[in-house]
């Protein structure tokens, strides 16, 4: 049975108009229709967070949202995070330096979660507890999380927040 729906979804600033089967979830739409394979699928039932993307700025599990539900919305994926000239975003840069990734399977989801956290904190510095709570929805089988938390602490934590504010760094 095919239950086609026409959708227009803006992904990383670019409008895409497609016909999708209504049962296709947003992650499969991104990966198979748009060939944006940076969004990963770990569990496909809402447990791992590998599929995290931003929809209208809010982090969501793209395996738990239908592509039709994203009709008319703005989606941001990992492909839209680094700048055009392939400069890593400060979050990606910090994760790299702190060994916040090994195999990288969870990393796109982690980056999207941290992006939302950065927006939500609105310049406020965050403690380790808040950072760990925000990251609790992203499972990582490699790092033991310490490197990820260290990267986030460098960017959002109290000690160095003044020098490493992500906004100023990305403009630099």
């Amino acid at each position, binding site marked *: 049975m095919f239950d086609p729906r026409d959708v227009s979804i803006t992904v990383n600033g670019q409008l895409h108009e497609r016909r999708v089967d*209504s049962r296709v*979830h947003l992650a499969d739409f991104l990966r198979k229709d748009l060939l944006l394979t940076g969004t990963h699928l770990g569990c496909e039932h809402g447990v791992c967070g590998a599929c995290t993307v931003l929809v209208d700025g809010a982090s969501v599990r793209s395996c738990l949202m239908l592509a039709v*539900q994203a009709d008319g919305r703005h989606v941001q994926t990992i492909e839209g995070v680094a700048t055009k000239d392939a400069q890593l975003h400060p979050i990606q840069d910090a994760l790299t330096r702190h060994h916040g990734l090994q195999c990288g399977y969870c990393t796109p989801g982690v980056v999207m979660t941290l992006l939302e956290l950065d927006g939500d904190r609105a310049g406020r510095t965050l403690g380790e507890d808040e950072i760990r709570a925000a990251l*609790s929805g992203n499972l990582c089988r490699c790092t033991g999380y310490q490197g990820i938390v260290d990267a986030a602490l460098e960017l959002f934590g109290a000690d160095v927040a003044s020098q490493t504010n992500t906004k100023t760094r990305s403009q630099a």
Partner: protein
Amino acid sequence: MKAPPFTYHAPQSIADAVALMGSLDNARVLAGGQSLMAMLNLRVAGPDHLVDLGRIPELSGIAETEATISVGAMTTQRMVERSELIARHCPLLTDAIAHVGHQQTRNRGTIGGSICHLDPGAELPVVACALDAELIATGVSGTRQIAFRDFPEGYLTSQLQPDEILVRVDFPKVTGRTGSAFLEFNRRPADFAIVSVAVQITLDDGGSIARAAIAFGGIQSAPVRLAEAEALLVARVPDVQTWDLAAQCATVLDCDGDELYPADYRRDLCAVLLTRALRKALRRAGERSHV
């Protein structure tokens, strides 16, 4: 896995949604999808029709009346988490929402979805139970109000009729010297609760307990009130003996058990969590007074 095939509907008004639910066979409401989408992907749910309420703006929002806070069924858990109105007038809900899933699921998950799904380990039904929330549902033959205590019918089952959808949930505002607390035990934060407890107590001018509400989650298919302890607390001065008496009532609760968490273990948790929650609620009642 991938979801099985279904026909998708996105009505734009409550009336259209109800008409669809009343006329389609084997239809299910899609709220935030944070349980149902997983069930579809795991193929433990197989509806022929999915009626998505996400395009009905009137189902979402937080409003205030003199005595209640009304939360639209499709209001996201994240909106509730961030609502100052709810923090001020219904702090138990704010307390509990921090335990509901992760930020990625709270961004999509809804109040109404969680209350209708009635997962035994879910937090929001326990709050609705403790606060005697009133549920407003609309169906083909009109709108009716259902007290939460009459709402659950069994495991993952509410008394909503096939054509009915939940429209909003009314929570009473706190008044007087009232304090509340929500505590739960699980293996990892944000998991479903093995046992959760919601407590709200009001003190009279003399410092004795005027009213107490105690509800547990995770121990039976639906949340349970501990009426015996509630009655016993009234008119007593809150002290260690009083808490011990309440905790004793919890040790005879009827609990479901499984291989991992037997009934005895859950009963112990009930007693321990209840004592801690009562202490916390009392401290908060002392700190605040609501007029």
